[in-house]
């Protein structure tokens, strides 16, 4: 039966979608093949892909049929095919909410996440955290702490992101992992650092003093990851906003310093943060506006868009600060991206004088 299906897929030829005519009941029927021994990894992989495709298209699976398919899928853990195993993890995550008794795979996943094979460990951590509820979390807490400080970046990142997801349901358990997250935050890997900083902030965000300390620490030591920088800029500007004090605090200096970062992403984040600060004076705005002006002539549409959109906001409050950019904005009126052109025009209308309207 499967063979036939495969063939039919191929005959459909180019242009048509081999997954289009899939029937949910037929696919679920095929899933019984998972119970056979010996397993055929290639066939099973194809069936799993079909199931995921159906789920992705928004097909509704009833609890009983989902549970049945889920239990059939658990049999595939006997097989050591790498792609097949990873598809199993995906299926677990997709079915975590529609199938019953998903905790049955806990031990298999714990085994994989502590196993030797690095390829499995990250995805296993993420799948495990999806099926874990508050009561079971303590059982795997030890493994999670280990995974967070693991030297393999994918494992560490997976554990950090999963912890973040768990935070909403099990705050009290996850907050005990602060030390591990702290260690991960000094990682050389840019993603690990970003995720660690994110987790740390979310654990501490209600504690203003802890957040301030954290920001001070990282603004001094510096970071490697541009994503982490963006995050830190946001946290810093939030603190600044709450403080409502003068802008001459070290936090503002930090944000201003980021205008000289080598990553455009960070520079833009800093400029936009300064622009959005309440009661910012024209003098403080100037450096931010001038980097935005530079971005206006960038070859990347997204950068031009970002720049002109931010300038548009500046123009609402401080039209005079933007006047210097008028020439650049005029060039953007003919931009091939209509959104950019529109934004440029509205910005000019706010800043323009009679002389520039004529042009």
């Amino acid at each position, binding site marked *: 039966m499967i063979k036939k299906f495969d063939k039919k897929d191929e005959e459909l030829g180019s242009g048509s979608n081999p997954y289009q005519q899939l029937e949910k009941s037929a696919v679920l029927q095929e899933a019984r093949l998972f119970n056979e021994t010996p397993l055929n990894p290639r066939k099973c992989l194809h069936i799993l*892909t079909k199931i995921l495709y159906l789920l992705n298209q*928004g097909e509704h699976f009833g609890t009983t049929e989902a549970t049945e398919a889920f239990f059939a899928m658990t049999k595939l853990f006997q097989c050591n095919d790498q792609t097949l195993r990873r598809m199993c993890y995906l299926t677990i995550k997709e079915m975590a909410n529609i199938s019953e008794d998903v905790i049955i795979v806990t031990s298999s996943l714990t085994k994989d996440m502590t196993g030797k094979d690095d390829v499995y460990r990250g*995805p296993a951590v993420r799948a495990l955290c999806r099926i874990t509820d508050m009561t079971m979390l303590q059982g795997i807490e030890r493994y999670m702490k280990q995974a967070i400080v693991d030297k393999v970046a994918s494992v560490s990142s997976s554990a950090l992101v999963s912890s973040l997801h768990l935070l909403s349901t099990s705050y009290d358990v996850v907050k005990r992992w602060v030390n591990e997250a702290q260690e991960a935050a000094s990682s050389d890997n840019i993603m690990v650092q970003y995720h660690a900083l994110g987790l740390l*902030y979310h654990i501490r965000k209600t504690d203003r003093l802890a957040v301030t300390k954290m920001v001070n620490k990282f603004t001094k030591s510096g970071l490697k990851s541009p994503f982490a920088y963006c995050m830190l800029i946001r946290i810093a*500007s939030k603190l600044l*906003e709450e403080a409502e004090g003068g802008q001459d605090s070290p936090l503002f200096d930090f944000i201003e310093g980021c205008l000289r970062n080598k990553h455009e992403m960070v520079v833009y984040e800093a400029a936009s943060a300064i622009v959005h600060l309440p009661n910012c004076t024209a003098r403080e705005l100037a450096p931010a506006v001038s980097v935005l002006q530079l971005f206006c002539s960038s070859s990347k549409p*997204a950068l031009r868009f*970002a720049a002109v959109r931010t300038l548009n906001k500046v123009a609402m409050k401080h039209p005079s600060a933007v006047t210097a950019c008028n020439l650049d904005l005029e060039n953007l009126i003919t931009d091939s991206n209509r959104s950019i052109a529109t934004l440029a025009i509205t910005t000019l209308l706010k800043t323009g004088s009679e002389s520039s309207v004529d042009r």
Partner: protein
Amino acid sequence: MEVLVLEPTLYTVKAIFIIDNDGERILAKYYDNPYPSVKEQNAFEKNIFNKTHRTDRAIALLEGLTVVYKSNIDLYFYVIGSSHENELMLVAVLNCLFDSLSQMLRKNVEKRTLLENMEAVFLAID
């Protein structure tokens, strides 16, 4: 008054989807719940598609969300984020997805090859 400073968060991407020439969903993943039901999601995708296809504008502000996109042969790739989001971060996600797929499929990223390697695509997005 509008929200001045975006709440710092790691949740940057609201949705990723890949749509074919006819505006049909090949793949979609929602990470947030602005469009909880499938029906709403489809309507949203159709809407975005209608407003963006046949243009090569790369970025737009639609339904209050920042949409960065890229088209290739018969496919459209979208990454959706909040309108307060750093656009460059979204572009980084889009490029990463597209480049990974190009590398994995080892040839032109088009609908047929994509569908033939659906499992790889699922894994890549994951």
